[in-house]
């Protein structure tokens, strides 16, 4: 997993100023969140040179711009030193102002393209490196300037040189989101079939697989992807290919699987994901989730694993929502999936509450439709673990309570079992929570339990539930008041010895 390795080194080197680093990260994170809210979350990747461990911070000065001009001049007029000049140019082009300067020069792109397509292989490599640096530019007007090169980049995707192909791919992936013109041109030039072919031919070359995955994910995140891109992708061989490389390789690491999983997630979110179901996506993703859960349960939590768990969970969650109930058992296969999801759910509430929340969502979809999964949760003794998650907020407990409600809703016997596991006393606590959804759901679950057996009502009263429900009658939410009142009137007050004469009109 070469990317994570590099990042670890980077983080380690900055250990001295870790507080500063943390602040910077937080700032960056805030910016990303805002970008997501504006539907403009886009990332680019920079493939580092072989000898680089971390991206060098280029001095973005006037000299950079001047270097570009002089290097271009030299390139136009030199012979055998072209390689050297090109290499120097690619280093210079890491600076944003140098990038701007480059595209302003007349015929600069034309020159670069001729070197890209020339007979000198080293020059080609350096030329594509130049384009790659340009593609990583923060300035959005650089990308359209690179359009003359794109047909060639696409053609080269069917080539055999690993490094070269990778650079082409990341370059294309960086360019795509930058402008609508670029998107249009690339789609017209056949980027989707090119990616499909590349993936098919280079399936065993995991660096290339990772690069294809990244580039495809850039396409699939586009705002209008649903109309223009996803149908074409679903019609191609890409989904099948992506599914086939989903299982991570022991030696290479998680990175290629991560990219492909994210692509599948974007596809599964679309309206049209029945196509994915037909190709066995749910089965594949479920079995992957099962093995990931097993790995976590055995304590083998690999670094970065949550980057893979997250999209796979989402695929399963969304595919379940469209899967017809009767085919659920064939599509999902093993009920032990419930156990795997529970393991994931319990592994992350402290460190990654979002992941715990998404796991709980998948459990909801598993239990909503299927009685088998509900009974599996009970028979595999997973419910106590779920009950222990009810204190955790940020949406985890509401989703978990929803799962328990799904179980209670199926059968009276399940209610009885839930009560035996101590759910009633837990509800006495959740009924006091600040989160209104928790309280309302608790009332719903309580209702179902109370209907199932007399003992529940008795236990609830014994635990002081009556005064709790009375307090709820002063809540400002009508939904809660009505439910609490109903429970008191119809189910609980016949037990209570608190009925006094005063209340009889």
């Amino acid at each position: 997993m070469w990317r994570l390795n590099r990042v670890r080194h980077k983080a380690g080197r900055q250990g001295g100023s870790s507080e500063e680093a943390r602040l910077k990260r937080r700032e960056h994170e805030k910016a990303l969140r805002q970008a997501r809210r504006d539907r403009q979350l886009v990332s680019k990747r920079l493939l580092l040179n072989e000898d680089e461990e971390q991206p060098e911070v280029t001095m973005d000065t006037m000299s950079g711009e001047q270097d570009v001009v002089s290097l271009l001049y030299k390139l136009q007029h030199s012979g055998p030193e072209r390689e050297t000049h090109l290499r120097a140019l690619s280093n210079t082009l890491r600076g944003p102002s140098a990038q701007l300067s480059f595209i302003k020069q007349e015929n600069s792109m034309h020159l670069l393209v001729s070197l890209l397509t020339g007979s000198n292989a080293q020059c080609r490599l350096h030329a594509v490196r130049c384009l790659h640096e340009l593609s990583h530019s923060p300035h959005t007007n650089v990308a359209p300037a690179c359009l003359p090169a794109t047909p060639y980049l696409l053609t080269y995707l069917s080539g055999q040189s690993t490094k070269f192909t990778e650079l082409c791919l990341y370059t294309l992936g960086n360019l795509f989101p930058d402008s609508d013109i670029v998107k249009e041109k690339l789609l017209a030039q056949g980027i989707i079939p090119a990616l499909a072919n590349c993936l098919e031919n280079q399936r065993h070359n995991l660096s290339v697989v990772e690069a294809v995955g990244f580039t495809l994910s850039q396409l699939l995140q586009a705002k209008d992807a649903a109309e223009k891109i996803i149908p074409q992708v679903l019609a191609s061989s890409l989904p099948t290919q992506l599914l086939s490389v989903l299982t991570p390789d022991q030696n290479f690491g998680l990175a290629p699987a991560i990219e492909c999983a994210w692509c599948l997630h974007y596809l599964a979110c679309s309206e049209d994901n029945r196509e994915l179901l037909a190709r066995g996506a749910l089965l594949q993703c479920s079995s992957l989730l099962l093995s990931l859960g097993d790995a976590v349960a055995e304590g083998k939590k690999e670094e970065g694993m949550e980057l893979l768990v997250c999209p796979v969970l989402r695929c399963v969650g969304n595919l379940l929502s469209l899967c017809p109930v009767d085919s659920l058992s064939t599509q999902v296969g093993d009920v032990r999936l419930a156990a795997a999801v529970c393991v994931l759910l319990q592994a992350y509430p402290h460190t990654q509450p979002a992941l715990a929340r998404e796991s709980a969502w998948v459990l909801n979809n598993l239990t909503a439709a299927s009685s088998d999964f509900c009974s599996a949760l009970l028979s595999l003794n997973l419910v106590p673990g779920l009950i222990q998650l009810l204190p955790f907020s940020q949406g985890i407990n509401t989703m978990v309570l929803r799962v328990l409600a799904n179980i209670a809703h199926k059968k009276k016997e399940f209610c009885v079992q839930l009560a035996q596991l101590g759910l009633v006393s837990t509800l006495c606590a959740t009924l006091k929570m600040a989160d209104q959804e928790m309280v309302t759901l608790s009332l719903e679950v309580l209702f179902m339990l109370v209907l199932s057996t007399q003992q529940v009502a008795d236990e609830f009263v014994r635990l002081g539930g009556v005064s709790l429900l009375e307090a709820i009658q002063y809540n400002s939410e009508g939904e809660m008041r009505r439910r609490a009142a109903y429970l008191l009137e119809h189910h609980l007050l016949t037990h209570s010895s608190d009925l006094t004469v005063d209340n009889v009109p």
Partner: protein
Amino acid sequence: MKPGGKCPTEDSEEPERRQTEAPFSFTPQLVRLHKDHELFEDGDIHRHMYLQDLYISQEDEPTTSVSEFACHISGCSAVFSALEEYEHHYNSLHRHVCCSCRRSLPSARLLDIHIQEWHDSLFTVLAQRQDMYQCLVEGCGHKFRTSDHRKEHLIRIHKYPPDFRFDKPKKDRGTRETKRPPHKDIAMEEVGDVCESEGVCEVMCDVLSEQPEPGESMETVVEEAAAHLTKAAAAGEDAGLSAAVHSKECLNTETLKPQYSYRVPSTVCFGRGSIRGFRGQRGRRK
């Protein structure tokens, strides 16, 4: 992502009639999330931080958060991080509350005495001719003609401090009284079967800690908070609270009253330890 609207059917043993009335609507629901859903935000951010080479292992940045508990009583905005705090809060401040004036008393007996002395017109009438003011000490049994006499008794015989919080006579407070015009009592008598509370039965807990009121009597309410709530309610800001108005029939005779009044029907049984209010008939029946 809210649950849909059908009552549970197959599990119920209730007769048909009751079942259709039950206000419960939970049904299991498959939830589908589109890629821009807010539930996915954190995961997406994590993903993009990784793409931008900013990934760090989350082991060193735990971000657990635990659900808070909150007081249910409408208008009380107290929030707690532990269950015991909630229990203590509720038992201290909401158990013995006078519906009429929102005052919280420390015990059922003191609440009874408060209601009698402050909100019972019959008491006022009888007190002109007989000793009605009970000694506050349980078991003492003495009664006095005025609250001053009682106070003297408490200090002399029972060694109470002269400024005992829970024995202040009902004073004529300017602004507060005008919020509740005198014929409120009459209105309550007419509606014999419900306890009509004008304001919400609550105590302004969060303002509580700021100033215990000097010279006020057996209560722990602060008027600024009440005034604030009134203003807010009158401005219609709190939609949740104003819904309370519509949930039960509203016989508010005063249009200027706070909009969030409840009525607690007598069919709901409260038992000794909970919130009670003035019930006109009850005072009479004694």
